[in-house]
């Protein structure tokens, strides 16, 4: 399972590195969205507002949706899914591999957006660094959940529009937990309580993905 996961993750990351969709399309979109969020707050508010963590996670949500669609569309070329199916790969490994690749991509975009947040929204650098571990775990949880929900939408009518409908209710608690722990790192408060929520969700989504991804692959 681990070997398959590693192979799939490396394959997805190689495709990403060659196509550079993350670099030239998703990241510029994320930075523009962050800039627009700052403009929406206004010059006086943007630098002093405590909305930084919320805006960071809102933009991260948009980026995550784009990246999930991108991750699932890698196998959309005619015959690719059928070819992959004939290889007889362990579905649990495929799930973990795709989730791992998506995690790495979200970490890259997360780091860029955090830099943008410090620069544009004047989020405190020390607090941001303190929140970094919790942000990385939240992004990994979003990636594992997103891989599962992304597989649910593939092949049907309008996967790009169906994905937000399916994922937003599931992402809501994760985003709230991520935002609260980020805010706690910046302004003080209970950091660990929200950490626990995110870690439990990560374990739950990984467990469900390992158990049920095969059912989705079969279909």
């Amino acid at each position, binding site marked *: 399972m681990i070997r398959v996961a590693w192979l799939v993750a490396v394959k997805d990351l190689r495709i990403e590195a060659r196509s550079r969709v993350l670099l030239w399309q998703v990241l510029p979109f994320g930075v523009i969205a962050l800039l627009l969020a700052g403009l929406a707050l206004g010059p006086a508010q943007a630098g002093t507002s405590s909305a930084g963590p919320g805006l960071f996670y809102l933009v991260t949500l948009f980026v995550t949706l784009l990246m999930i669609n991108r991750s699932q569309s890698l196998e959309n070329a005619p015959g690719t899914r059928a070819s992959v199916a004939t290889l007889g790969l362990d579905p649990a490994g495929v799930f973990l591999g795709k989730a791992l690749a998506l995690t790495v991509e979200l970490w890259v975009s997360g780091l860029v957006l955090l830099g943008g947040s410090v620069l544009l929204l004047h989020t405190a650098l020390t607090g941001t660094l303190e929140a970094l571990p919790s942000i990385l775990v939240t992004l990994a949880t979003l990636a594992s959940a997103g891989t599962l929900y992304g597989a*649910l939408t593939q092949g049907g009518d309008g996967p790009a529009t169906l994905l937000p409908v399916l994922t937003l*209710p599931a992402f809501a608690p994760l985003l709230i937990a991520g935002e609260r722990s980020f805010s706690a790192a910046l302004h003080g408060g209970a950091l660990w309580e929200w950490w626990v929520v995110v870690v439990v969700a990560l374990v739950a989504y990984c467990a469900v993905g390992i158990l049920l991804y095969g059912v989705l692959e079969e279909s």
Partner: protein
Amino acid sequence: MMKVTQRLLGPVTLLLLALTFWMGLWVTPPDKVQGNLVRLLYVHPPIAWVALYVSFGTATIASCLYLWRRTRSDAMDRIAHCAMEISVVFIVLTLVTGSIWGRPTWGVWWAWDARLTSTAILGVFALAYLALRRANDDPTVRARRSAVFAILTAINVPIIHFSVVWWKTLHQGASVLTSTGQLNVHGSMLWTMLIGFVGFTLLFFWLLRERYRLEVSRDARVRTRVDEALATRRSEGA
């Protein structure tokens, strides 16, 4: 025996619901603190019980049984689908009755309370389930994906249940049966509430049975139409 039970389900449900409304509106006294507003609580908790536990429980169990190879059948998929549709109605009713009670009690129609918000999220999940079903034409793909999604959705139910304990926001905690198993409601108030719980639970199963029948006849009609279309094509070819 089964047929008699099925035939009695409708009338018994209507009788219990009528009894709940009669006792709730005329027999029970006004509450010492809440006055006549307490009468809404004879329907709100039973509706929420059906929305969160009975309908979602039925949909989740049916989905699990569909995914398990030994018990996989179209019937399980249909039951999950019908239960989820009914849950949407009951979740909306839960939020509406809660909102009507909340306006005079809390001063607002809606509060960003942990239980209210998590229940609304569950409603969106149920709508997303129905959207997912409509997105897939292949019955097998649709059934499998819907079953996986229903199981993922069910994770939200314990969050809603324990939200009043974990976050301690506006919505009160367990008030009928305490964590130590003690009953906090007495006399006619308790009986009205209990009859309400049974009545609304039976209403769910009655609606489920009728919706299931409708789904079976719809599937049969689709199959007949496909067969007719194929026969017409064949006759054109010959």
